[in-house]
């Protein structure tokens, strides 16, 4: 905050170390595990936390003598083997995980006690009748589909369809007087333009993913996102439509005659089912990660002001009892869509 920076020159302000005057919390076990329907193994990280003023690196907190147990609420399930790689446990199970299973995962350490996490295995999500049309004038792609007809368990909080696309931009290079030296290829554009009258069944949760080897930008920052709640919205029907902002597919002429263009190379849908824990964890971590980027600035006094005065702190969701971390259940079904736009 520049005002405070200015006032610092007017008043004599100071920074000083102070003793911690709150309660001390003992370290606890940290469980971070991911489960997927249909798989017969679980990747589980077990480490321990440390007090926030403990200067030691937490990466050194690899624990030995950790015992992990897994049980299922619906059937017999146990760990056949525990392959340890640092703090990463690859747990081979006696049976595949099935949708609807409530899994209890506990980790025990002689010094840090027992931490227990619980979550429900989510079912697969296979949409039907997918179609894609593009409005090249408005730079939008509309993806419609039908939700699966089988009922979802009550634990399902949201269905997320993430649109993963890659595209290539041709960017001119400058010579010493900032004029372009490379010309770009001419594209043929689609003339499709669709009007959608009914938006009652639509929700949009859009996200981008990154893929190596391509220049990629972010175009979905301002899309309002909300999970689909089957208890209320599913009764409206099975139709689901997504609106995706795509890069402008035309040609932009910039200064000194340089030309920019973009083309979409592929489009892929990642259809995921999330439970409440997953939803809470991801949203809290997303908020936390935004704030964390500010921490990367030099540790000067201004950054501390901007960190604390611009954004709210974030409470990280955890479904681990007597510990920290998260036990996540997800299903992901990737659908690749080809040949959808350009001739």
């Amino acid at each position, binding site marked *: 905050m520049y005002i405070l920076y200015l006032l610092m020159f007017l008043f004599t302000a100071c920074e000083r170390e102070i003793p911690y005057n709150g309660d001390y*919390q003992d370290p606890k076990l940290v469980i971070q595990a991911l489960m997927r329907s249909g798989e017969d193994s679980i990747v589980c990280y077990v480490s321990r936390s440390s007090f926030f003023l403990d200067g030691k690196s937490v990466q050194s907190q690899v624990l030995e003598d950790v015992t992990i147990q897994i049980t299922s609420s619906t059937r017999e399930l146990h760990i056949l083997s525990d392959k340890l790689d640092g703090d990463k446990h690859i747990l081979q199970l006696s049976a595949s995980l099935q949708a609807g299973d409530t899994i209890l995962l506990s980790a025990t350490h002689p010094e840090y006690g027992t931490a227990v996490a619980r979550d429900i295995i989510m079912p697969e999500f296979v949409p039907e009748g997918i179609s894609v049309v593009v409005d090249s004038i408005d730079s939008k792609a509309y993806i419609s589909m039908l939700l699966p007809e089988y009922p979802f368990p009550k634990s399902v909080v949201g269905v997320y369809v993430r649109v993963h696309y890659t595209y290539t931009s041709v960017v001119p*290079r*400058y010579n010493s007087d900032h004029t372009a030296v490379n010309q770009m290829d001419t594209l043929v554009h689609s003339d499709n333009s669709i009007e959608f009258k009914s938006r009652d069944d639509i929700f949009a949760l859009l996200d981008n993913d990154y893929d190596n080897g391509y220049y990629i930008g972010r175009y979905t920052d301002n899309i309002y996102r909300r999970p689909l709640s089957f208890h209320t919205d599913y009764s409206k029907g099975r139709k689901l439509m997504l609106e995706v902002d795509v890069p402008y597919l035309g040609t932009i002429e910039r200064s000194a005659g340089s030309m920019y263009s973009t083309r979409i190379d592929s489009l892929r849908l990642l259809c995921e089912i999330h439970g409440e824990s997953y939803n809470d964890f991801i949203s809290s*971590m997303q908020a936390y990660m935004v704030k964390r980027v500010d921490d990367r600035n030099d540790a000067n006094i201004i950054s501390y002001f901007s960190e604390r005065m611009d954004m709210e702190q974030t409470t990280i969701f955890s479904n681990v009892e007597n510990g920290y971390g998260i036990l996540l259940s997800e299903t992901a079904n990737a659908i690749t869509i080809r040949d959808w736009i350009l001739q």
Partner: protein
Amino acid sequence: MKQLVCLILSVQTLIVAAKNSTISGYVTDSQTGERLIGATVHDLHSGAGTVTNVNGFYSLTLSSDTVLLQAGFVGYNAVRTEAFMLQGDTSLVIALNTSNILQEVVVERTHSISGVQSVQMSTMDVPMSQIKGIPMLGGEVDVLKALQLLPGVQSGAEGTAGLYVRGGGPDENLIMLDGVPLYSVNHALGFFSIFNADAVKSVTLYEGNFPARYGGRLSSIVDVRQKDGDAYGYHGSLNIGLIATKLSIEGPIFWTKEDWQKFRNKEEIKAQTTFNISARRTLYDLIIPPIMKHLSAKPGTEKETTGNYWFYDVNAKLTHIFSDNDKLSGSFYMGEDHVNMDISGMQTVSTQMGDGSSHKESMSDENRLQYHWGNIFAALNYEHRFNGRLYGDVQFSYTRYKYALASTYNQEYEKVGVSMEWFNKFDSYIMDMTAQMNFEWRPNIRHEVHFGGSYAYHLFKPQIGHQEFSSIKGDTETYHVDTTFSLGGTNRMHVATLYIEDNYAPCSWLKMNIGLHAALYHTEDKTYPSVEPRIGVRFLPHRDVAIKMSYAYMSQYVHMLSNSSVSQPTDLWVPVTKDIPPMRSMQVATGVAYTICNQVELSVEGYYKKMINLLEYKDGASYMNGQNWQTQVCVGDGWSYGVQLLAQRKIGPVTGWIGYTWSRTMRQFDREGQVINFGKPFPAKYDREHDLSITMQYRIDRIWEVAATFVYGTGTRGTLGLQKYDDKLYTDRFDKNTGTTTVYYISERNNYKMPDYHRLDLGVTCHLPDKNHDNMEHMLNLSVYNAYCRFNPYLVYPKDGKLYQFSLFPIMPSLSYVFKF
């Protein structure tokens, strides 16, 4: 049985109303003609009494034939009339002389109308003479900071003027200047309020038991009134201090040559028209730039940083008294803050060529940041006395608050003659136009009825952005793009209110204030009605002891979104919408008030307040991230409870008060889709369990005056992640580019209590009359803020495995000179 007697008496009272007579008029300052607010007038024979209203008007309906009136006000000698026969309605103006405060005060053991005897509880009335004597930061007298020293009121961050009243946030206070509500009443991050103490006549704080005439905010009413101006002569003061220089002038305006001649001949003549102008400006812009430039210079670079900050404000009031029955006044305020910062430098950069080679060239850049924000308001008020029992006023007002944040970044490549400029601007704007009418009617000895209504048109433009980019080669603009966008839209709101309240005293030991405030908020095709009952009851088992109880239901149609306890110009005022409902509160309070020898007032009060539809930012939210503010907030509830103790002395050579509050304030956001802290209750940011303020002023003799203030408070709340661990899942799957993430696990919002806050302020003032002019005075004030240099925490944060605090103000002496004429 007693109740039945009271009821019979009240019925008889109504029947015999026609036989009563009314004495009405004004209580004024004999030297300036200024009408006094809150002065007491009572009849020593019957014991009946009243206080003057915000226009200095009083009305006393009496049944007795013989009347012996006594009028009094803090800082003035009480005046007693001779006993006289009351024959019909009578008009009487009572002029009071300022008292010699060095004299030991002998106070008649009369029935004091204010304090104990008043039905009004949870109300603080601090005389301006006391406020001006309190030692303050930088020697700058501040009305709102003085209110922070009262029980039930807490400050936010160190040195700021925000008010947190009984668990409510700083936006839950209806702060009015001459009856006009204002937004963002702070300069410089809230270190100083916009109220120039030299222009203020009175300030009253209501923490509960809100009279029905007030509405629109949940937690408090701060009613600030400006002076009308001296009707007999010209006066003023010049104040040169560390923070600002102030000039105040007041005086009469004579419209005829004859009146001017009489005035020049030093004949006593009271003008019908008076004016009062006060202006204030900081001197920071003379000091800061060279200091910043010197301290920011880095050897080996051509980087230069300059900055500047300054504020000004102007208060003005023009009053014309047509007759004893009619008065017209116009009030005006304008004030602005400006912050400029400029960081410029030159560096050598490497530019990549089309053939893959690179060359070096000079690039100069400049980063300019400009903030400015401010208020402007204007009001026209007309008062009319219909008769001794009915008084009314009508007011039209205009208020506008605006801030703008602009940043410009410019790059210039010297060799190729190309420059590029990025410009961003962010505006927020609020405008109100209001019309209101208020009436007071005293039909008989038992009833005092207030009624009226208002209409207000509000225009909110909370988030307007403008961006531009241009590139220039030589003298030719080769590229330009600009866009203006609105994230919060434009909100128009209409607010209509009606109210009626009755101060009803069926008998001497029982008094009630029963009122109803009704409001209608209309915005975005949605209408929110609000019916708000207000009840206050006072029992008087003994004439010096009162037991009081109250209930108040309030609603609020605007919110201020702020991420911190520091008032920032970028705090966003937003209205209710079709999705964001009005906030509401219900408060009950009970207490006992006791007067010792009519000099010291003691009170103990307990309260409980429930608030609903409060707004808080979501976890990780910030409205500066380019999203509509409505998507960044959650709606939830809160509650607050506590006990307050106050011992106050307003008269005599030693004045001041001791105030203590024990309280808790909690929040809970557990509505579907609007969960904070996982739906669990958490302490509010300003949940400070203990709060103690002791302030004292002692006038030793005619020359010397000393003052001291001690404050102690439990530390404010902050959020710390107390445990940390390495994230494995999220970074690996969703955010590969960020590397290993250390997660500081925050189990609860506001889980950390900062170290306790306490400080001692001292002040000494020397009053020196001018040797050559009797009406002139020189005052030299030396004050020391934080006299024992306590490093109170402003921010607390972990760094490198240790905990650090940042403190803002160590010991801060200041010197100011005041010339009064």
